[in-house]
């Protein structure tokens, strides 16, 4: 029996085994980092739907994420609703938010779209600081743990949090896979590759891109809510450049338009950042240098290392078995 390593289910299984085996280490710190990585992966994977597969680069993902956190925070803390309602509301509000932002932003393209979403971030920050009775301004909201099925989920309950974060990540991956395999996904990719041709084939670019926006936002909202409850707090710092770079770089460095690229990207970035922490003051410079070199040397993302390894392994395996390795024209260009 042959195991098809390109099969999505096998890939998911490998990742699941790897992730859950880290629980065996029983190291609170590592588990905490991995939970954060999984959330960042989930957000980056959702972001990939719009920026990777549809080719629309924007930075509105962070507002969706933070909006989710704040909605859940306001509902649970200021209005006394249970956390489940908070999470569901986070998904809904993030969805509505994405419709609004998408409707406005998608009227323009390229750098202009990026700049509108930049302005949205800044405006959101002003709103958070202004509506101080609801958001506590620069202090942030302290959130209670999520209570579901008799379990409490926050950073002191590692296993339930781990499972929740894992489910969010897998849900995002499954969402992307389903989209990519569908006709809608084909529409997205065709818009990225050649919008003119796509339009000529009858695809409405505005509506399709808006769909992409909406599909990518609801899970992000839930991730934001989880993030808030897990850490116990949500605040204007979550809209800062630090988190933006982490999320954006996870997606871009991991591999735009690839399924597991953002996952790989976020794990590599978070762990590298932690690994470099002993460098103290020099850490940001080394981090920045690494970002730039990866962008230049691996323009298709970190995940392309796997592709290259696989091609080589495939060829080597064939050589071992005695087959001559013919490099076809397709392989060379592909």
């Amino acid at each position: 029996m042959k195991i098809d390593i390109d099969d999505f289910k096998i890939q998911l299984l490998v990742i699941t085994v790897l992730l859950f085996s880290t629980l065996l280490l029983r190291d609170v710190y590592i588990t905490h980092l991995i939970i954060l990585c999984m959330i960042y992966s989930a957000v980056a994977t959702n972001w990939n739907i719009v920026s990777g597969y549809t080719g629309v680069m924007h930075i509105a993902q962070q507002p969706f994420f933070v909006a989710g956190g704040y909605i859940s925070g306001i509902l649970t803390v200021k209005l006394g609703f249970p956390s489940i309602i908070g999470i569901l509301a986070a998904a809904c509000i993030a969805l509505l938010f994405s419709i609004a932002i998408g409707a406005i932003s998608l009227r323009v393209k390229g750098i202009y779209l990026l700049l509108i979403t930049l302005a949205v971030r800044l405006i959101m920050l002003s709103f958070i600081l202004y509506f101080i009775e609801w958001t506590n301004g620069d202090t942030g909201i302290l959130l209670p743990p999520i209570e579901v099925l008799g379990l409490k989920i926050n950073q002191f309950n590692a296993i339930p949090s781990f499972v929740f974060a894992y489910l969010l990540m897998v849900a995002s991956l499954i969402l992307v896979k389903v989209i990519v395999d569908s006709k809608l996904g084909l529409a997205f990719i065709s818009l990225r590759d050649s919008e003119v041709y796509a339009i000529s084939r009858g695809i409405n670019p505005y509506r399709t891109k808006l769909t992409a926006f909406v599909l990518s936002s609801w899970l992000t909202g839930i991730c934001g809510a989880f993030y808030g409850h897990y850490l116990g707090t949500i605040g204007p710092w979550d809209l800062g450049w630090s988190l933006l770079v982490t999320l954006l770089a996870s997606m871009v460095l991991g591999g735009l338009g690839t399924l597991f690229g953002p996952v790989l990207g976020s794990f590599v970035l978070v762990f590298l950042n932690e690994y470099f922490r002993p460098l103290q003051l020099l850490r940001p410079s080394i981090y920045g240098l690494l970002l730039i070199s990866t962008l230049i040397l691996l323009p298709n993302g970190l995940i392309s290392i796997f592709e290259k390894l696989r091609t080589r392994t495939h060829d080597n395996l064939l050589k071992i078995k005695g087959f001559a390795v013919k490099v076809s024209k397709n392989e060379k260009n592909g």
Partner: protein
Amino acid sequence: MKEKMKTKRCAISTTYAAVALVAVIIILGGIYLTYNNSQKTVTDDETDDMRDIKLGMPMGFTGPYAAIAEDSRDAMLLAIEEINYAGGILGHKIVPIIEDEENCEAGIVSSVFTKLITREKVDFIMTHFGNPSCSEYDIVQEYEVPYISGGFVQTAESVFNENPGEYSYVYLGQPSYSLYQTRFPDYIDELIDEEKWEPTNNKFCVIKRQNEYSLYIANGMRDYLLGMGWELTFDELFPEAIVEDWSSILSKIRADPPAIVVNTMWTVSSDALFLEQFLADPTPSLLYIQSTPTFPDWQEIVGESADGVLHCYGIKKVVSSDPYVIKFKEKYGRSPSPYGLVCYDYVYLMKQAMELAGDPFDSEAVADAISRINMPGIMGIYEFDPDSPDGKLLKGGGAKIPFPVFQMWDTTNYMLYPDEVNEREFVIPPWYEAGLEKYGPD
């Protein structure tokens, strides 16, 4: 094209997959086994006698609070050096474990605290401030590590008030800031009563920033002054940003000159620019500027132009001839800022608590002992106030932490009030006369 690459399939046999999986499990298991061993810092052979006291110092060295983090760390390191030289705490040396929290966002703060507690196994954590929402309180409480923080007093107060008894391991090394709201107005009252100053009118204006410290002090002082019969000309709120251009504010001030200007922006560059632009065409007003006059970089930038500026601060006067300032300057080549003063005291506070508890490694005893400390420091005499929220804050006012009102002359702050700390008389600021001429009552 990416599409084409994906359709190339690579199938491997079950045996290869099984071998790979087993290899992964062996590697991970190996890591687990070796890792768990390295975690043990205290084996059964090593007794508590040989252990060092690990002090966790998580601060935002590479973010917007870098200057504060730098000063706090340097102050703590100086204290640690002194204590270790004198024999340590109950014979144990202190080892600083410094971690960078970047911009103090919640994700990084929780990662750093978790690392300090579960990996480095620190015995105590100390910082000038953590995350603005005080989310790290839950972490130190969960893992039972004593923690002293110096920041975000209003948030801390509300956290303690809403959860009495919950945070036995957390202490705030600051007094309540309520005195900031009343100290200066009370002093003005005294000045007027003793006829040391005759205000041109009974008006005042307030300038504040969208930030809890600024709002608390500004709004509190405003309401207190209003209650005393003063009249408010304007109350300007700025967003959370550096303000570079003060012309709009200054034109309001010049249009209707108030006798008192209350500025709680507490940012070095904003306040320096305000002073500079005010002095270009001053009004006969007393200037009250919160907090920044105690910062050495502000003193350096504005120099003697700040003569006459008034402010109120928790820290007692610290002169350049102060032995601590000399020590700090010698070691680091610059003057300490207020954070670089208070954090020095925190280390000594920890020392006293550990000595009172008798065992530096008995976290519960140490945490409890903190509430019983009584020692002199930069702010005054430190003692935790049982009447403060959950008893977690220091006692402010009176003999403990007097909250003096200062006036600045020659880049030095002189204490004017209350009487117990008075060292100089109030003098009308140099710009006042010019202001009177141009804007005074005819």
